[in-house]
């Protein structure tokens, strides 16, 4: 099991500088986390321009509320928590009734059987250069139920620990693991269906 990552020492130093009045140092504090903020917002809102707005709002809010950051969590975790709250608020204000993703079979369903593979044991990571593959990943992520998507993004896209994911989402580590199992298998089933065909099609050319 991964242990809880410790705050980076330079983060503390930067925060002290900002609190002492060096506002410009805030750039350096945020820069390593900007992708995490955006991807988190995007995973909830599913809209690039709204996700970008939320990312900007998150940064401003973090700056204004830096005095509230206690340093118990990592700074990145704190930022992601703000991004999640902002995104959820925006989702509510949008008053869009999000359709739950179609009831995908879940592993604790006694009838669940993973989709069988054809020829998809290995996809070299260079294929991520292909827009087609990135789009397929985005579609598969979008198709997940919100609560599974959030866990998957924190845990497997941002590579946070189970403990951090639980803390950010306000759920138990056990719940993180249950949701993660479903999220991972659903992603996998969708991608096997989509990319399996894609892969075979390419090979057949």
């Amino acid at each position, binding site marked *: *099991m991964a242990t809880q990552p410790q705050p980076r020492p330079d983060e503390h130093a930067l925060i002290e500088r900002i609190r002492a009045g060096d506002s410009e140092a805030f750039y350096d504090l945020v820069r390593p986390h*900007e992708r995490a903020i955006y991807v988190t917002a995007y995973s909830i809102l599913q809209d690039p321009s709204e996700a970008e707005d939320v990312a900007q709002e998150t940064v401003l809010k973090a700056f204004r509320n830096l005095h509230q950051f206690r340093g118990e969590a990592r700074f990145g975790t704190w930022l992601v928590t703000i991004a999640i709250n902002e995104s959820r608020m925006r989702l509510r204000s949008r008053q869009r009734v999000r359709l739950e993703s179609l009831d995908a079979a879940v592993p604790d369903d006694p009838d669940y059987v993973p989709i069988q593979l054809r020829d998809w044991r290995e996809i070299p990571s260079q294929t991520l250069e292909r827009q087609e593959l990135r789009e397929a990943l985005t579609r598969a992520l979008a198709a997940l139920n919100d609560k599974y998507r959030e866990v998957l993004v924190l845990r*497997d896209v941002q590579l946070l620990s189970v403990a951090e994911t639980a803390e950010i989402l306000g759920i138990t580590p056990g719940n993180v693991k249950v949701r993660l199992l479903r999220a991972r298998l659903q992603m996998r089933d969708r991608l096997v269906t989509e990319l399996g065909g894609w892969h075979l099609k390419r090979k057949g050319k």
Partner: protein
Amino acid sequence: MEVSCHEIWREISNYLDNDVDPRLRERMEQHFAHCRHCAALLDSTHNVLVLIGDNRAFALPADFSKRLYTKFAAHLAASR
């Protein structure tokens, strides 16, 4: 005792996170050694994790950073 395919499907995520006890891990590995479908499930799920954990999978929009810091700079300037 041999684990069933259903048990594999329930524990595969924990297995990938190295979060199953050594005894279960061993039994799961025995199962993977002779069950083609579960071995393929393991490979492909692992593969999905490698893909989505890659920074290129969900990229930032072009000039995202530039706009972010322009916005922040404007905020700083206005609050001075």
